[in-house]
């Protein structure tokens, strides 16, 4: 089986999805899906270990066709890292899902949910492992389409309009990517990203490539909700079912950031002749990232719906990742990659905690969370820990990424950038503390039923994610260190 390691993470959920659909039984479908997710996670971990220990990318030629004619899966450290990210988050969140969706989605749609969830995961994993540019588009659409369907399962009717908006913007973004891909194919005659990189040196200064870069960046910017292309995100996160929000928030934008990294560093390159992503990393990304960090955080402060508050916070956090990517240095890239994982854990955990709250009080409005600190002490405590992670307090995973980011800024003598990063993280203190103060300092609303702690089947997955975000704030061997390794690989530093 080890030779098929690179393809397994995609194959397992992809094949399990129709099986879940066929099973039609709520329990059997969810059970299968959860089992498959965990197996996928194990496969992902083994894959990462293999890639890191052998020091060479795992290459898998689909159908036995070589790179010039067929699709090749090319799993380097970064790809394997993202595989682990998606599969781990996917597994934990799906374990959370059965009880959570029992209250949010009609029972006869549960097998449908399981199938869509697996499809979405397969798409995201496919994006991570594939070495083919067009394949990226296909997997992106597989995951997006199933995500649209998942989000539209939300109870509130606003979930429908949110999905529609997401669909329109997502499709425009995907089509941009498709155009960019076509132009790149036109200039290099190949769709394989590694070969594209080899040919791109010959096209220095050709305008078509510049146009392609513009289309690709704009397209993926839409998909990763880079400010100001984030309009679809807040409502989509806000009205989706709790577990869907957690999964999408934790994985899908992160994978888009991965795609951006892949393009900038693998295809276009950042140094030397033929490097054409200069304007992107020098100007576009930092400008968007910084404005996102401030504006989205500020908007988050004024939200009355906590899920939407967290959604705006996600937009801001995407800014940190983009900023790290744009710094073009080892620590900058490490910060960006590590933050993919660290933020996925933190935000996933927070949205799961919101799921617990929604399960018990049926609302995610800030006003309804008054006094929750006393009624759901464990959930709120986990929320607080997650919130501290958003701020980037030491001992949380968020701190690790912030450390690398500030370090990268200072290494480039960009003191102003370091100050900006730290100041913007202070905005997080405000919106996190708004929730904490409401939950701990205000009396619970009158006339509502007595609320008790969420059931264990919801609490445990939440605690696992939040606990992991604390663990990886202290022990970085498999988070930031691997990210550093991936960064060195991308920058071509020999290890």
């Amino acid at each position, binding site marked *: 089986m080890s030779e*098929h390691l690179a*393809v397994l993470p995609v*194959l397992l959920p*992809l*094949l399990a*999805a*129709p*099986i879940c*659909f*066929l099973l*039609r039984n709520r329990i059997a479908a969810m059970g299968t899906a959860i089992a498959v997710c965990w197996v996928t996670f194990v496969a992902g971990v083994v894959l990462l270990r293999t890639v890191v220990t052998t020091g060479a990318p795992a290459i*898998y*030629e*689909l*159908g*036995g066709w070589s790179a010039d004619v067929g699709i090749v899966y090319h799993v380097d450290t970064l790809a394997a890292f993202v595989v682990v990210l998606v599969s781990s988050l996917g597994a934990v969140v799906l374990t959370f899902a059965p009880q959570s969706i029992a209250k949010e989605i009609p029972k006869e749609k549960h097998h449908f949910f399981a*199938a869509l969830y697996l499809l979405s995961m397969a798409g995201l994993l496919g994006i991570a492992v594939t070495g083919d540019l067009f394949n990226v588009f296909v997997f992106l659409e597989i995951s997006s389409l199933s995500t649209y369907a998942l989000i539209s399962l939300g109870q509130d009717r606003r979930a429908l309009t949110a999905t529609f908006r997401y669909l329109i913007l997502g499709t425009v973004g995907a089509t941009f990517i498709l155009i960019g891909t076509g132009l790149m194919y036109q200039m290099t005659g190949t769709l394989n990203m590694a070969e594209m990189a080899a040919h791109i040196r010959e096209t220095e200064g050709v305008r078509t490539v510049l146009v392609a870069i513009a289309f690709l960046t704009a397209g993926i910017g839409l998909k990763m909700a880079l400010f100001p292309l984030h309009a679809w995100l807040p409502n989509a996160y806000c009205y989706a079912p709790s577990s869907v929000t957690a999964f999408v928030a934790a994985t899908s934008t992160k994978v888009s950031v991965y795609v951006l990294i892949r393009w900038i560093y693998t295809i276009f390159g950042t140094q030397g002749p033929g490097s054409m992503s200069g304007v992107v990393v020098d100007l576009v990304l930092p400008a968007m990232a910084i404005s996102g960090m401030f504006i989205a955080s500020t908007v988050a402060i004024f939200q009355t719906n906590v899920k939407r508050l967290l959604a705006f916070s996600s937009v801001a956090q995407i800014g940190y990742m983009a900023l790290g990517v744009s710094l073009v240095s080892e620590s900058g890239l490490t910060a960006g990659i590590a933050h993919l994982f660290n933020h996925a854990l933190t935000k996933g955990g927070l949205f799961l905690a919101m799921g617990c709250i929604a399960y018990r009080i049926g609302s995610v409005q800030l006003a309804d969370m008054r006094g929750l600190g006393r009624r759901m002490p464990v959930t709120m405590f986990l929320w607080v820990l997650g919130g501290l992670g958003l701020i980037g307090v030491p001992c949380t995973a968020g701190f690790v990424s912030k450390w690398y980011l500030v370090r990268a800024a200072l290494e480039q003598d960009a003191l102003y950038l370091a100050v900006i990063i730290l100041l913007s993280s202070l905005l997080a203190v405000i919106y996190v503390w708004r929730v904490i103060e409401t939950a701990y300092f205000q009396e619970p609303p009158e006339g509502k039923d007595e609320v008790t702690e969420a059931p264990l089947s919801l609490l445990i997955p939440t605690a696992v994610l939040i606990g992991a975000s604390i663990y990886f704030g202290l022990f970085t061997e498999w988070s930031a260190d691997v990210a550093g390794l991936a960064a060195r690989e991308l920058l071509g530093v020999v290890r």
Partner: protein
Amino acid sequence: MREVKILRVVSAKTLLPFILLFALYVQFHGDFGPGGGFQAGVIFGAGLILHALVFGLNESRRVIPEWVIESAAAVGVLIYGGVGVVAMLKGGKFLEYGVLDAHDRVHGQHTGLILIELGVGVTVSAVMLAIYGALAGRGRLST
């Protein structure tokens, strides 16, 4: 529409067999000439949609129940994936059809291709029907 005999007899009863047959031709000839599972699936699905248009969705549902459509969509994907997995089990890569036939790689290629195209065809036609059913079946199903 139920009263319009010409439509019912000419378009449906006469054309439908040919449409479906043509779909099958495109399906299985796709190995040698233009065609394949996707096109065949669309044609097949279009034929059945025609049936539904002429005779009404209820009648069409009676011929092909909804669960059959849904299952077919899933089964098609499974056929496709299953071929790939069988290839893996036979020692090849995922979707490497060459290994499907122990003696002749080209033969194996043909086998694999026909099988996966079948999977594609089944899924596409089922999905076409499902989409039509989902859109047309809302609200006015009772008529």
